[in-house]
């Protein structure tokens, strides 16, 4: 049982981390709580379904097309709606939630409420420590690691990344230093939405496609970033695995309660926040918030 918990928890943690990375990035830099983040994940998933099933494209072109398309939608959404109200946090919250609901209804209109399956890019399974893991889960885990590395390289080694971090640390000073704050927020939004789209590509084949598929992941990624410490990517990754292991423990130790595994994970989050309100890697690590 221990091996099964270890492996299953790791795979689920990878999924949550991948979903939360982009969300944590846009909040950490642009201070935007984008409640439509998982709606972009949903759009990408439907885009992959459309390109694979209806247009007959293979895996790589499907992923590329859906990531590009979703990112463009994300950029358009930011320019048309979010940028105008960026300074008003409550307005951004409500606006992005409304946008998510609009996207949901659009998918309902276009595809109906039918439950669909996105194609897996790799089929079959391997056995790790005697536990069967699907190749799609392993691929997702690999993409999480690659994404983390990519973000680290971007933020620490590239001029764009340094500019993004400068904006995250102090917007006014960054502006005075000649950094175009608006453009940095736009670039961060584009990167965050692209990551949501990549999540859709990797995770959608594991789950089921339906217009409400963005809701539960939204709750979980909010829990992940709050538990990890708002704006801390390192914290988000750690929190993703904590919540994933909590859910997995419920399934294995209290199987009749597997329908509330999510609620138990959220209860753990609440318990941690009561002890440490800033989250696991919150204010105490200000200088490495990203």
């Amino acid at each position, binding site marked *: *049982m221990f091996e*099964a918990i270890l*492996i*299953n928890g790791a*795979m*689920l943690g990878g*999924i949550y981390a991948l979903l939360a990375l982009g969300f944590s990035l846009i909040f950490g830099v642009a201070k935007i709580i984008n409640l439509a983040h998982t709606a972009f994940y949903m759009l990408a998933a439907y885009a992959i379904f459309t390109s694979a*099933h209806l247009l007959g494209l293979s895996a790589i072109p499907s992923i590329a097309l859906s990531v590009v398309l979703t990112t463009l939608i994300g950029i358009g959404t930011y320019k048309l709606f979010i940028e105008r109200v960026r300074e008003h946090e409550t307005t951004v919250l409500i606006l992005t939630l409304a946008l998510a609901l609009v996207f949901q209804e659009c998918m*309902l209109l276009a595809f*109906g*409420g*039918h*439950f*669909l*399956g996105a*194609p*897996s890019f790799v*089929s*079959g*399974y391997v056995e790790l420590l005697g*536990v*069967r*893991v*699907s190749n*799609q*889960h392993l691929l997702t885990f690999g993409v999480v690691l690659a994404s983390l590395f990519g973000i680290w390289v971007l933020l620490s080694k590239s001029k764009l990344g340094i500019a993004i971090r400068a904006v995250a640390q102090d917007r006014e000073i960054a502006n005075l230093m000649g950094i175009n704050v608006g453009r940095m927020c736009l670039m961060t939004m584009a990167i965050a939405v692209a990551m949501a789209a990549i999540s859709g590509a990797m995770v959608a084949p*594991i*789950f*089921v496609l*339906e217009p*409400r*598929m963005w809701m*539960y992941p939204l709750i979980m990624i909010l829990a992940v970033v709050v538990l990890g410490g708002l704006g801390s990517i390192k914290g988000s990754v750690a929190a993703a695995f904590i919540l994933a292991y909590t*859910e*997995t423990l419920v*399934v*294995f130790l209290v*199987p*009749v*309660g*597997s*329908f509330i595994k*999510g609620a138990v994970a959220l209860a753990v989050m609440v318990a941690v926040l009561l002890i440490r309100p800033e989250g696991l890697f919150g204010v105490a690590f200000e200088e490495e918030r990203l």
Partner: protein
Amino acid sequence: MKKGLMTVLVLCVLALVAIPACAPAEPQVETIKIGVIGPMAFVQGEHHWHGAEMARDEINEAGGIKVGELMMPIELVKADSNEILSVPDAAAAMEKAITVDNVDFLVGGFRTEAVLPMQDIAMDNQKIFLGCGASHPELCARVAQDYDKYKYWFRVTPINAEYLAQVNFLILGMVISVVKDELGIEQPKVALLMEKAVAAEPLVQAAHMYLPAMGVEIVGEWRPSPTATDVTAELSAIKDAGAQIILTYLSGPVGIPYAKQWGELEIPAASVGINVEAQKMGFWNATQGKGNYELTMNMYARVEQTDKSIPFYDKFVAERGEFATYNAGTYDAIYIAKEAIERAGTLDSDAVVAELEQTDYLGASGRMAFMPNDTAVPHDIVWGPGYITALGTQWQDGELVCVWPPLGEAWEGITYEGTVAYELPPWVIDYWKAD
């Protein structure tokens, strides 16, 4: 100039009003309005509607329903209950159908949680409501508890949850025999994987009561949410527990990731039970074929339960491009209502109720009659040999075939023409025989 313009304008408006008023009145055809209430954005509601459409078209083509001396065509009214997402929406839809659309009868309903309040609204308005989706016995137990209020409710499909449990156990019994014979396991282990939903509770209780007597050991009970999207952990735990059989009750979307992940990981346990998603043609593509060998209870398959079964099945597939789920039982429901109205000779609800109670109708899913008033579940569809038996259907290489009642008339002397043998998944055989 302005005065002249105003005069012309007034004359035009008067003309626009007068012309329709002078036109000869179109003769008003009196229709029987039947409300079809279901989650119309989902396959359940779509099949409610299409089953009703098929019945309407056939009946109207033949002249309509004879009410006394009058032939009245059927007019269908679509009522979107949205019950999968919102129970309050379902109640509102029922109210509208009755008070705004003024329907004479109602067919449909899907989620027990939503049908309970919808039933109350229909009963308060003394509207006959033929249920075509919710299985909880409570819906008919209410008829016994308060006959005068609830007598207008009849359940046409599916069979109630307790009968579903019995059929499930009969189908499970077939799988247990195959596991014993082919794998040489004397006491197979069964894992219960049943979504947390009201309609699942009778089945869970029945499983704990009866499975030990069937010579199996229950190794665990997993209760995922009906909307769970990942049950990999549950499947890992089931494999860890050493189960050779998984008994399912999955009516929600969880049925797709369950079957896909079960097949992808080749969990070495035969899957049997209720998986509503597996009743649909889209299941094969949604699981990318990984749902092969999934066995689910069903009400329709391409077998001859009656001489109406295969024509109904073929026509539904031809018109909709997909298999009929049990929600398409609105087809039989409307024919049952037609016969009751014709016998009563009136649309009066009480008179029609009295005739509905006498129903003995050969429908697409079998011989249909309702439980008498002196039983615990009056107005419930009768289940058993010679009546509705339900079916066990298994996906075999892209085809959904009937495997229960089994070949050889092994159950009550019944085997429907077109039935084939049940197949254990090959990876299950390889895994357990290698041991």
